[in-house]
């Protein structure tokens, strides 16, 4: 049996928002702290079940690697894909600075 974790706090929500790359407003953090705690308390029903001998199921099919022959096939071209990009330059995606500060 797995014990139920403690009630979700505001600082948990701030931490998770950072992990999920969501710049939530103060109002959203307040709202989510309340709502997620209620949902997780309901979900604690499953945390309380004795499943010590039960293996996990991650997928409905007994999947193994699906391989194919290594043959070149036509695919969507770079220029066409880059037309969907918010910003592109010289055949590449253009993004803001990636070095210097931790996100």
């Amino acid at each position, binding site marked *: 049996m797995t014990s139920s974790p403690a009630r979700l706090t505001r600082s948990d929500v701030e931490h998770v928002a950072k992990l999920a790359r969501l710049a939530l407003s103060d109002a959203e953090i307040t709202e989510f702290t309340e709502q997620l705690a209620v949902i997780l308390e309901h979900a604690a029903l499953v945390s309380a*079940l004795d499943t010590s001998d039960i293996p996990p*199921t991650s997928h409905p099919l007994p999947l193994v690697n699906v391989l194919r022959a290594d043959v070149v096939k036509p695919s969507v071209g770079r220029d066409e894909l880059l037309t969907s990009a918010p910003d592109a330059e010289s055949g590449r995606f253009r993004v*803001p600075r990636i070095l210097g500060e931790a996100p």
Partner: protein
Amino acid sequence: MNSSAFDIAADVRAGRVSARDVVEQHLATIADREADVHAFNLVMADVARRQADAVDGDVAAGHDPGPLAGVPLALKDNLCTRGVDTTCSSRILQGWKPPYDATVVTRLRDAGAVAIGKTNLDEFAMGSSTENSAFGATRNPRDLSRVPGGSSGGSAAAVAAGFAPLALGSDTGGSIRQPAALCGVVGMKPTYGTVSRYGLIAFASSLDQIGPFATNVRDAALLLETMWGHDPLDSTSIASPLPTLVQGLDDGVRGLRVGIVEELTDVEGIDPEVRAAVSSAARALEDAGASVDRVSVPSTMYGLDAYYLIAPAEASSNLARYDGVRYGLREEGTDIGTMNANTRDRGFGAEVKRRIMLGTYALSAGYYDAYYGQAQRVRTLIVRDFAAAYERFDVLLSPTSPTIAFEAGSKTADPLAMYLSDVCTIPTNLAGHCAISVPFGSDSVHNMPIGVQILGRELADALIFRVARALEVNRGA
């Protein structure tokens, strides 16, 4: 405009009716009621006309356009259509035009179907009322003050309103069957792996499955039969050949063993009239020669909680791709992390953020085992309990949703109450099985449709269609 897909295709193939006329009739119905219903994010009028003309050209040239010749088809707006906006009803994908077609879109077009529009959904298929759309809510054509269900509410409403005889949806926890029930149409979730997910924008990959909507069981069977089967572009697609569905549809239910699932029928908050409809459906099947008994599938009562850990966990991973770099919205920021976070905060709606947060939390260090790991073990229990039930029964029976269509706005402030409307449909997705919702009566107070659900084990798709057909034939009694 009440012709079945079957009749339209037969008439178009025989040259008795032109595909162009069929499309024009449906576009006229859309022009008449779409402003009230808002089933579509995009009506593809010109594309549909060109496609219909091509079908008519084939017929004139003596070529058979295929089993869905000239049949208008509504596509849920999370299915990729080359060069045509595909939004998932999200600001983050607004204006994006996919560079390829989903496999189902290609196959159905090759079979003569005419894509008529992209239907509204709860953003990224997360919701049960089609109110979580960045582009406005869809209303139930049977009563505009009520929701159509969700997340494929636009597709269900389009079929119910006569905008198209056929539509595609996707079902992760009930997103085809629940809106089908609430709008009074047929909706089916096929066995996981039978329909290619290539080009279906991912929500929860171990649960998502594309399936059909139609006004009647035979049309739904025809639609599924035309699009399913192995696709090398989807590595989870089942490689073995699949049965035909339309042939054998009228073979009846004599000798079949039907089990009413206690945990899904005596569920908290069930409308007594919905429960009564399940009982009369059971009697109708008995009258048609089936044997009916009650059965307990105990762990299904934990399905909802397991689902609301597993699906958000998978979603939090799948939706990581919306980062403002390769396609879709970008909201500027001084460095890439800030740009990512600003883009995602502005691009996603509240329910999507809530689920990303829930899933990220359930997967995070220190909580993984108590939440995600535990939910996966409960998933195993559900698979085992279903297997035991299917030792004794050929198919199972339950309500599709505990209630009739609810009033718009009545559950938007309470996420948990909204989640509870999927309680009867979720276990099928967790097990990878198939299930179908068939209209069976209406409630006496509001005259809104009630759907009953027939559940089958993996690859029992043809069997549940047969049982659904028997219910359809006998529902007048």
